[in-house]
């Protein structure tokens, strides 16, 4: 089994730094995702792992072996391209067997293996079709079969679902996850869609502007974001800015325009630091003086959106900042008229204080 290590990897294109000091170890058999907005450098990392770009600094190791100077054709990786890059002039089975053809397998062996894989991807007997005769989902599967045919240690997927419509995309997510679990091949998945990253992955790396912001399990990423970027890029979050006035027992007290607020101090901020407090909308409650919560902020109702199972309450705080609360749809909302005063409460353990850096 082959682990993949990125050791202080940096890639520069002229003056532009696409990836900066990436350190990471991906374990064999893991479903690992790189999540980030377009242009954050995630595709560049993928191209470096597959060998289309060489790092300017640092090293990439697969199974302990340094990949410097080894071309994409000699690496134990297979890449699934964003547009799939199926060969339009070859039939479906020739596409699937291409990796075997260049390895010198006999035509009958190629065909047999291609037929097996066609069975696997639920396209039995379709080997003699041209790629242009297949639907989007079928092409997707052919691309996966073509990559798996060469039995790679690592399968790299570059936003392979982005061209599909929503329903098919959700369906393919489940298929991809299942294929990964059953084959045990390491999947490295690139996406800007947090839903894809969080549902499929064992671990996720969130990237912004060429840097790894946080590498953790999906639930860790969601509940314990390490940077302001992660907090705002993954899921929704209410930001409140201020500075630290007290720290104790792993908690920090912040002075904000909405008063003094307490939050977890996971990043060990010190008194005087500028900070951002983040609280998820579903972790807030409408308090109305009942007390019990450590933090209460006074706001005015802006509007209510009925989403079905829950209700979105949009409120505006004293500093003009917006506050969103997801309320379950079983509460009395009669008093939440426009401009009505509303107290929003949340516990200190649910909120997190992070350094005031760039948000998504």
């Amino acid at each position, binding site marked *: 089994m082959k682990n993949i290590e990125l050791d202080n990897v940096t890639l520069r294109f002229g003056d532009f730094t696409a990836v900066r000091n990436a350190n990471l170890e991906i374990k064999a058999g893991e479903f690992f995702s790189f999540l980030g907005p377009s242009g954050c450098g995630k595709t560049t990392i993928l191209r470096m792992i597959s060998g289309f770009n060489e790092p300017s600094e640092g090293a990439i190791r697969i199974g302990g072996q340094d990949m410097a100077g080894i071309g994409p054709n000699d690496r134990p990786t297979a890449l699934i391209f964003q547009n799939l890059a199926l*060969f339009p002039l070859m039939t479906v089975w020739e596409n699937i067997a291409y*990796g075997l053809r260049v390895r010198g397998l006999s035509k009958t062996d190629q065909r047999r293996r291609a037929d097996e894989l066609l069975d696997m991807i639920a396209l039995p007997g379709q080997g003699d079709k041209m790629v242009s005769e297949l639907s989007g989902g079928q092409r997707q599967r052919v691309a996966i079969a073509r990559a798996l045919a060469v039995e790679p240690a690592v399968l790299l997927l570059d936003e392979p679902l982005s061209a599909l419509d929503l329903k098919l995309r959700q*369906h393919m997510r489940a298929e991809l996850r*299942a294929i990964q679990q*059953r084959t045990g091949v390491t999947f490295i998945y690139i996406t800007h869609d947090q839903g894809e990253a969080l549902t499929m992955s064992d671990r996720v790396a969130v990237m912004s502007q060429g840097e790894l912001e946080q590498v953790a399990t999906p639930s860790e990423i969601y509940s314990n974001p390490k940077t302001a970027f992660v907090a705002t890029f993954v899921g929704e979050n209410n930001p409140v800015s201020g500075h630290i006035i007290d720290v104790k027992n792993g908690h920090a007290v912040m002075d904000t325009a909405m008063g003094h607020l307490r939050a977890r101090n996971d990043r060990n901020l010190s008194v005087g630091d500028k900070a951002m407090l983040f609280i998820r909308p579903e972790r807030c409650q409408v308090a109305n003086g009942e007390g019990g919560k450590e933090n209460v902020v006074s706001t005015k109702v802006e509007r209510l959106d009925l989403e079905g199972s829950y209700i979105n309450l949009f409120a505006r705080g004293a500093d003009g900042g917006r506050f969103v609360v997801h309320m379950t749809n079983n509460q009395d909302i009669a008093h939440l008229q426009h401009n009505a005063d509303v107290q929003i409460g949340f516990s200190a353990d649910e909120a997190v204080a992070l350094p005031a850096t760039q948000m998504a």
Partner: protein
Amino acid sequence: MTDTTLTHRTGSIPAIGDWFMERLPGIYMVLFFLYMFLPLVFMMIAAFNTTAVPPTALPFEGFTLKWFGALFANAPLLAAIGNSLVIGLGVIVLSLTLGLSGALLITRLHARSKSALYAILVSPLLTPGIILGISTLVFWNSAGIPGGLFVATLAQSTFIASYCMLMFIARLQRFDSGLEEAALDLGASHQQVFWHVTVPFLKPTIITAGLIAFLQSFENFNTTVFAIGTETTLTIKLAALARKTPTPEVNALAVIFIALTVVMAILYEVKRRSDAAREKVMAERAKQAEKEMVSLDIDKVAATTAA
């Protein structure tokens, strides 16, 4: 609707004027095509006329095929065809090779000097043919090689390669370079990528560019006449024959040339239509497949990939 606005504005134009204005473009097109084709038609008719020297379409004194027979008995002319074929084949090989190298460099090199390179490589198309013939002649003559088939082949290839390059560039711009990366990623060597992915994609262009290169070479006069020295080609022989002592053999040759051109044009059109039709069928089937999407049997996946 717009015509009514116009008539309202100029309401007094008599009906006959309207009728004429409406048909003017059509009449113009008919006249233009008559202008394009009548000279060729008269030239072809003269090939079947018994009148000998000088060849003429009218008066038509009697139908004959004897000029075709005379044409095939004309040994110097046939020898000239041989030279034309040799040069043509040389030009195909040279122009495709050079044109493709230029196209690959220009579409794939990421350097600032690219536009200057492009300008120089297309410049032969904007240079009068005789200049290319003269410069090639002077160049090789100074190396002790006089004008002849070799120099003519090189002189023609100088600009025919530019045509090929432009065709290759147009094709390569529609090429998804991801296909090459995919093949490389699946373990193909650089040469395998080129022969398995790039060349098949370029194949239609290789065929048309080769054909066009041959035709350009076969018909070329202005460049060849300078570079050919004491040798001759069909086109040069034809010019000499047509100018000095035109006989209906020239017309017979014209009939053959034009017939071949028409046949090729028709074949091209038929091919274009059948390609379009096939693409349509493929897209139709893809749409059908979309509806018949079957779910993946995950256990089967495990079974096959474990094997």
